[in-house]
């Protein structure tokens, strides 16, 4: 065999075939199958994400669990504080035995308070409430010095509560004293910041929250969001299920940082004890309801920032935070009474208010791109109150999971 001939043959092919520039036409169909292959590959990669995702799920569970437990204990503290204040008044006004240990009162007060209608105590105390305020305060002062640091907080709360309770007493016990209400109300209002400050401090250790929407591809994304959630006042102990639906728009400022806003129509029902319900307008309750069921419908306007901390293939994870404004559309309350007592059954707020940036959002978003245009996202979130919301001035907190369908607007200008 002629080696030179072979060499010539090889060279002929090598020369022409090594890099056939310009001989091959690009075919878009090949890229389409390439994309399918990439998407399929990512799906396979998803399996490896499972340990990470389950870790995140566990973290979220712990977080939600902590929030469920923590605010509840604070809530109890508030209620106990209120009962404590009532008992203090009683103790000081009726027999003046101020030596009762606060710890005992704390333990007894819930049962005492529930066993005995408020008005019994209140009637007796109504006229003396203001008179004894100073005395009670003095008593508390004395007690405080005797107390451990732990019970100190409760006493402080009790102090804050006193004028408020006094107001209730006055309202109940003195139906004819309407003229005095206004002045008393101003007293209540002025006391409220005092009351809310320690309560807030106890319930929320400077925590902020957020609900983002979707954060995603850099640049522009439009998302349709639907989210079932749980709403509760101060805790999720008596939470009710609400729904949210809306549109959000996200702008990727960088590969990692996304800012989003939008509008979500939210239905937030919640149930709370009457103690959390602030009468505000000075309405006199013939009998205090035992609980309040609220039906709030609002526009939730979030403004959130999210940071994408994980990305692999089509999957992304982001942490987000921000603030929400609630624009109330409808607000009505139903009042439940113990022992078939009578009283107003419901109240619809005629002009629901607007509460700007009153709620903090915290969320974590898992996002999965279906293709270059569309994606899905799942977002567990927590909304924590920074200020009181609604006519009843409650601290409404929400947790839920938002499911979003995202449309990458950049895909309109396909490469």
């Amino acid at each position, binding site marked *: 065999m002629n080696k030179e*001939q072979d060499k010539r043959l090889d060279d002929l092919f090598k020369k022409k*075939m090594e*890099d056939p520039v310009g001989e091959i036409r690009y075919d878009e169909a090949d890229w389409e199958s390439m994309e399918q292959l990439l998407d399929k590959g990512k799906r396979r990669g998803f399996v490896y994400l499972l340990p990470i995702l389950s870790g995140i799920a566990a973290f979220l569970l712990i977080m939600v669990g902590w929030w469920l437990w923590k605010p509840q204990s604070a809530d109890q503290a508030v209620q106990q504080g209120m009962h404590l204040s009532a008992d203090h008044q009683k103790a000081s006004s009726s027999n003046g035995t101020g030596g009762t240990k606060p710890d005992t009162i704390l333990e007894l007060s819930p049962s005492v308070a529930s066993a005995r209608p408020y008005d019994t105590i209140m009637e007796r105390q109504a006229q003396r409430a203001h008179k004894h305020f100073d005395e009670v305060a003095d008593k508390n002062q004395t007690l405080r010095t005797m107390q451990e640091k732990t019970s100190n907080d409760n006493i402080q709360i009790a102090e804050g509560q006193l004028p408020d309770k006094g107001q209730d007493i006055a309202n109940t016990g003195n139906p004819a004293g309407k003229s005095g209400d206004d002045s008393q109300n101003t007293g209540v209002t002025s006391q409220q910041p005092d009351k809310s400050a320690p309560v807030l401090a106890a319930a929320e250790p400077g925590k902020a929250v957020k609900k983002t929407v979707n954060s995603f591809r850099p640049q522009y994304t439009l998302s349709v969001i639907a989210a079932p959630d749980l709403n509760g006042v101060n805790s999720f102990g008596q939470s009710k299920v609400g729904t949210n639906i809306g549109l959000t728009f996200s702008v990727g400022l960088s590969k990692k940082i996304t800012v989003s806003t939008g509008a979500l129509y939210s239905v937030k029902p919640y149930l709370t004890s009457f103690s959390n319900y602030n009468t505000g307008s000075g309405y006199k309750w013939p009998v205090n309801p035992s609980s309040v069921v609220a039906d709030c419908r609002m526009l939730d306007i979030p403004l959130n920032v999210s940071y994408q901390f994980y990305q692999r*293939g089509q999957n992304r994870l982001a942490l987000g935070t921000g603030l929400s404004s609630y624009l109330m559309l409808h607000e009505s309350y139903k009042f439940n009474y113990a022992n078939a007592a009578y009283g107003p059954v419901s109240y619809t707020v005629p002009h629901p208010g607007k509460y700007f940036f009153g709620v903090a959002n915290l969320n974590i978003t898992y996002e999965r791109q279906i293709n270059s245009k569309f994606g899905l996202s799942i977002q567990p979130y927590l909304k924590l109150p920074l200020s009181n919301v609604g006519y009843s001035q409650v601290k409404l907190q929400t947790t839920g999971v938002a499911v979003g369908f995202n449309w990458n607007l950049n895909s309109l200008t396909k490469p």
Partner: protein
Amino acid sequence: MGEEELHQLIKGCIKQDRKSQKMLYKAFYGFAMGICLRYTGNRDEAAEVMNQGFFKVFTHIEGFDQNKPFKAWLGRIMMNASIDHYRANLKMSLTEDIDNAGHISDGEIADRNLSYKELLAMVQQLPQAYRTVFNLFAIEGYSHEEIAEMLNINAGTSKSNLHKARQKLKQMILQAEELPARNANYNDMNYTPIVALRAINMNGVFLNKGFRE
């Protein structure tokens, strides 16, 4: 494509940015397809192998050393994808390998300028085992020992397959050289090939005294 632009694209691909991936794909489509076409039997098969190769590129691009030439890296991936494809089709190609290359004379290969398409068509007609060895030896420049290792065959088989591949290619080149020559004749003299074929057939008829074989 400039170095800087390429680096940007690679960066985008590392972040799994689909737009960058597409741009890189388009930029090296011709080069990659060129490799896969000569290792496979047709365009569809080539596109499939090429996409497998690009899939490896996109999923392993973090591992690419940007100080080295990207094209060489990509080319090697395409070659490996082709070899993987060859291995996957090994059972099918065994039947082809039985095919015996006809012994042809070592005639001079004319210096006629065969086009890329013509040469590609010839390579694609080769049985897969011949084609793969021919590509690796003649175009990529590997030794028989290296090829033997890559394809998990012995060096003797590699040599034999290369020989057979060359024989077949020569045959095809000679045929290709004859064919255009005949075509040229038609154009010049207004003969039709059918007439010529009939003349040959007539010879046969005469030799057989008018009886069919």
